[in-house]
């Protein structure tokens, strides 16, 4: 269960170029729901997502996820939270070039003390779900756009997190791959994951499996 109270994010506070990215956001998200956050570029949806993921700290406000207020956690704990509970799919995929698909997907797992077989099992399972197992030895810079995204999805799934976040997932994809992604959202729902997607792609409008649409404009929820 995610509960956000009085969330503010202000960049360059008290300076000339002060910019309010999020202005008094209050939000409650139930478990296993699929939420789409809509808004134009610069409306604050990416910032909201990164704060929920613990990638940046809010200026003020509380973010309580599974009974833990992540706004106040020190780095070690929040990194652990990010590692175990969050799966993030970036707009530009953010894969490590020079490594192959398998090696990219296993990255979150190396932080845990598990043996090699267990690691292989988990990675292979994530690759299967994302439908990219056949490319596991391929270097990621040689993958197509759609394949890169499936690799990013596999990495987001490998730790079996309870929350999946996706920031503009279809911005760098063609229409057929975008539709494939939407199918993947259905799979996430089957896996009982909480899914939050930030997008301004109209492809996501009026989807029946989506539990809620949230619109953000000028740093506020409408």
């Amino acid at each position, binding site marked *: 269960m995610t509960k956000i109270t009085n969330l503010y994010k202000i960049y360059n*506070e008290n300076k000339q170029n002060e910019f309010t990215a999020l202005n008094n956001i209050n939000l409650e998200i139930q478990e296993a729901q699929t939420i789409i956050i809509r808004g134009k570029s610069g409306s604050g949806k990416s910032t909201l997502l990164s704060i929920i993921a613990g990638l940046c*700290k*809010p*200026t*003020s406000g509380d973010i309580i996820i599974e009974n833990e207020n992540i*706004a*106040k*956690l*020190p*780095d*070690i*704990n929040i990194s652990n939270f990010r590692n175990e509970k969050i799966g993030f799919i970036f707009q530009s995929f953010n894969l490590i070039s020079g490594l192959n698909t398998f090696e990219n997907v296993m990255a979150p797992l190396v932080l845990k003390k598990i043996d090699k077989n267990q690691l292989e099992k988990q990675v292979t399972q994530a690759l299967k779900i994302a439908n990219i197992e056949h490319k596991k030895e391929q270097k990621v810079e040689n993958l197509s756009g759609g394949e890169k995204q499936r690799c990013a999805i596999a990495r987001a799934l490998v730790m079996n997190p309870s929350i999946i976040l996706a920031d503009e997932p279809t911005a760098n994809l063609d229409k057929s791959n975008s539709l494939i992604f939407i199918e993947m959202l259905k799979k996430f729902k089957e896996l009982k994951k909480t899914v939050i997607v930030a997008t301004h792609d109209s492809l996501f409008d009026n989807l029946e499996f989506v539990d809620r649409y949230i619109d953000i404009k000028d740093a506020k929820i409408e």
Partner: protein
Amino acid sequence: MNIFLLNDIIVFIFIEVILVILMLISEYSVIKILKNWNFSITTSLQYSLEKRNYLVNTIINFTIICKIILFFFFIKSLSELSNVVPGAMCIAGVIGANDYGEVLLLLKIFIVFMLGIWLIVNRLDIKSKKFIYIKPKYFFFNFILFLILFEIFFEVLYFVNVPLKVPVFCCSTLFKADTLPFGLTQSNLAITFYIIFSFTLIFSYLKKIVLSFLINILFLFISYFSVTYFFSIYIYILPNHQCPFCILQKEYFYVGYFIWISLFLGVFFGISSYIIESLINKKITNLFKYSILFNTIFVLICTYFVVIYYIKNGVFL
């Protein structure tokens, strides 16, 4: 010709200086943290202080590993020096070469102990998720930094004053048989030793913090005398060779290291609970089992030599 020109000493001092520089760099962060730390507020200053906290942690972890390595290296360098300093047959002569030697050795041991305690406090601090012990932790750091500066000052003084032309005393003069403390005889010393050891076991088992602290300090003193005047003669198999340092040499299979290290670890875990409690007001009792473990290993090693000698010869020395 100056002692400083020994390769070992140059390397040694060079690394000590590097460590001091690192500690001074972290001191800058520590002062900032002590002045401005407030975990509950969310300003960017606070976040940057949290990040500095990680830098200080890294530096201290690195320093403690280096200090431990350097301590062994120090002992080894002294062994090498005993070849160059006239009259010294083992490091007892080199340490005793001037007044600074013994103080330096004790100071080094004390610093390693203090760093060990710092590590334990740091771990507790991180576990607390809110860094509740951060201020006492860093005041303690300042104390340790002060000790380290003092240490390097003493080291320079010590090395400069090691005589190269005048012979120094050797262990046979330094540890003469008739100078046992409190007028104890050898057998009384051994008995007292075992009695105090049993008390350390009892207090550690019962997890009594203050009593454990006191008895372990006492045990440290008694052990020093017991090893020097009683147990070492069974290791050298010579009734008049009473020296705490010769057992560190190759001829005796470096058993000295095992003896002293297990003693230090045992005493360290025995006294750390009390020191931690006085620093941060939290009772820790899970370290006593290590104290029991290491003190027992220490006593077993010492007793082994006595027993072996008795079995072989039927009498005691």
